[in-house]
């Protein structure tokens, strides 16, 4: 199972608390993980990546294992520690704002 930590607003929108755990079939990539997340929580479609271009929304970043994975191509395998559930993938919103 892969662990994902979502920003508070998205946890509220999806009516979840704490980490999300997801099963990803096949290669554990950013795209496969987000596909699984959106399949489980359809209300999150469009909130992390654009529904048409599938691009990450510009004010969000993906962190894991002390690395910024935001600019990794979406089909790049996730770090082994994320794929095995040892470490979570953190979806983080930019800290700026009113």
């Amino acid at each position: 199972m892969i662990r994902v930590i979502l920003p508070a607003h998205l946890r509220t929108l999806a009516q979840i608390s704490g980490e999300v755990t997801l099963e990803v079939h096949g290669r554990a990539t950013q795209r496969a993980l987000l596909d699984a997340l959106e399949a489980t929580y359809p209300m999150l479609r469009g909130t992390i990546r654009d529904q048409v271009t599938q691009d990450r929304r510009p004010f969000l970043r993906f962190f894991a294992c002390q690395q910024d994975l935001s600019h990794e191509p979406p089909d790049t395998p996730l770090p082994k520690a994320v794929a095995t559930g040892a470490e979570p993938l953190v979806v983080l919103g930019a800290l700026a704002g009113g």
Partner: protein
Amino acid sequence: MSRVRVLVGTRKGAFVLSSDGKRERWDVSGPHFAGWEIYHLKGSPVDPDRLYASQSNSWFGQVVQRSNDGGRSWEPAGNQFVYDGVPGTHQWYDGTPHPWEFARAWHLEPSLTDPDTVYAGVEDAALFRSTDGAQTWQELSGLRQHSSGSSWAPGAGGLCLHSILLDPSRPARIYVAISAAGAFRSDDDGETWRPINRGLRSEHIPDPDAEIGHCVHHIAMHPARPEVLFMQKHWDVMRSDDGGESWQEVSGNLPTDFGFPIDVHAHEPNTIYVVPIKSDSEHFPPDGKLRVYRSRTGGNEWEPLTKGLPQRDCYVNVLRDAMAVDSLEPCGVYFGTSGGQVYASSDSGDRWAPIVRDLPAVVSVEAQTLP
């Protein structure tokens, strides 16, 4: 006894204000969707407990929420707004071509006849319609694909379609307004459109009388007289007596004819309300006095309404969708400010009192009259 529900969208959530027909004591519910910008929420005239809300922010984009119980509970609906075909470009602030990009839904207008049908006016300017209760959205692309579309340029707030009027006497007739393109009308249920801006004059565009390029801030109509339209433009308050075919200025004795909202009394089609704002660079009331102006003559002759409103040191703004009326007798009038106050008058504007004083900045106000 009838009741009133006032739906308030703010920069940090939605609030539902409820009262009985006396409109003296109010129950405040919210914030709903705390922390999100709620550009607009509105109820179906067919089923008043069916509400739609536009929820967005810069981080997570657009969400549409739907309620089937008058705002007590909500469920996310569809948020996929995809422009029809190859979107092409419109004009950017600097005059260069800019690709059409969806940013947010500014206004949701439920159908007059079907609670599952709702229109969305969005930025970059386009009109969408859902016929399944906001689960899926289809663009009425004849508007954006009008031959002038590539020349539309944004106002300071973006290239937004912010006003949608549905004509109760002609079900196929729809009016919209876009900043800063102008007003448009469809007579075939949104298939084809044409600009209706004859008579508008805007000194900030190269040809002040051009067919396109006017920064219309809001348009309003009375359902009993839908061929008469009222408009608050960037500057100028305007009136049309022929469904937008031509416009005449009715600013009359207003202290300034800049402003954002305009609305019509529920029972007097010739009584209209505006909130004059000092200028386009100073978005606050003249002289620090918050005054609603009322015309009982459909324009030109205006009276200030001040009782209960701050008459010194007041520097708030009132945005285009932040004024509404109920249909009780006497007519209730409501407006919200950038300072977080929502003011109500239960006597057609003669006297005002705040329902709430300290909400986040108010973006939109809608009123529902309930049995």
